[in-house]
């Protein structure tokens, strides 16, 4: 239950955001971070963004998730 995941904000109204995680779109709360904007990368935990992440780092982390998904042979976010 502790696996946070990095995601990219597609659109947001300031309290909720539609995000993309490995091609899957899901809605998360952005009420606990300041100034969430489309294009921002965030770390999501239990449906809530807990912090913003620098883009480069987030992309590197997403690559690791993709690799894990490939190794596991199933989607991690299913």
């Amino acid at each position, binding site marked *: *239950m*502790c*696996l*946070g995941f990095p995601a990219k904000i597609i659109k947001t109204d300031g309290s909720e955001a539609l995000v993309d995680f490995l091609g899957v779109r899901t809605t*998360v*709360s952005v*009420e*606990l*971070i*300041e100034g969430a904007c489309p294009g921002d990368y965030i*770390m999501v*935990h*239990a*449906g*809530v963004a*807990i*912090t913003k*992440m*620098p883009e480069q*780092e*987030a992309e590197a*982390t997403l690559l*690791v998730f993709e690799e894990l998904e490939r190794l596991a042979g199933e989607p991690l976010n299913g």
Partner: protein
Amino acid sequence: MLPDSVRVISGPGCPVCVTPAGYIDAAAEIALKNDAQLLTFGDLVKVPGIRTSLEKARAEGAEVRTVISPLEALKAARENPERKHVFLAVGFETTAPATALAVRHADEEKLANLTFLPAHKLVPPALEHLVRNNCKVDAFIYPGHVSAITGMAPYRKLAEQDVSGVVAGFEAEDLIRAIFAIIQACDRGETFCLNLYPKVVSEEGNLIAQKLMKDVFEEEDAAWRGIGSLPASGLRLRPPYERFDAWKAYDIVMDAREQEGCLCGLVLTGRMEPQDCPLFGKICRPENPSGACMVSSEGSCAAAYRYSMGETT
């Protein structure tokens, strides 16, 4: 992969594993006696309690639904106003703010059919407990996502007591970097406190989340599975939010006994390797767990089991 001189020991780092067995029984009882729908993180479903598990309760007719966020519980309660809902609020500082957010929303919306069964735990009191009990590690690897909320302050305080550690992320690369940094820092012979996960963890942490947690919860002494009660290590709802407290709403108390046979307590405090538990792999397996550490994918025994099986196949 690591040289013999380096040992990585697992600690009380899995929130499901440290949730007392009696909590499971309390949740099952609420569902069965009061006909309330339980909303829980999936990891909790198979965890054995003292008398039952959520899986068994489900077979007896309890409605147990898995969610990945407390906000989903909020949604479920909104969509079905006739039905009572109880969210099983477990987890460390990473999850507690999400619960606090759900409580805040439930309060604003005056939702009358949702309560929370809080058993949130705080990481720093557990670390202090390990230190007080002569846990002889050279350094701790502090949890990255918990630290995203708390910031570095708790670890700076430990450093003042001569306790070293590094904050790290969860990927293999992060952990290797953490171990490498610890080896280098230990060679220098000084106390250290390093943040190796600055992309996610800032010095002050998430101030909005910290404030929300303080507004909604207050600290209380709490029982940890296999460890016992630790002072100010848990969270209960503050009086203005009391009506959302399922412990009170359903007038239920937690059975403080430990579950028999399982030695998770020794594993959680780094005093025993999972493989040394007499039940490991024989009676206790992921599909038929005797203890919580064998259930959650993050549990030490489950990880040790997967790893040892991988080696022999």
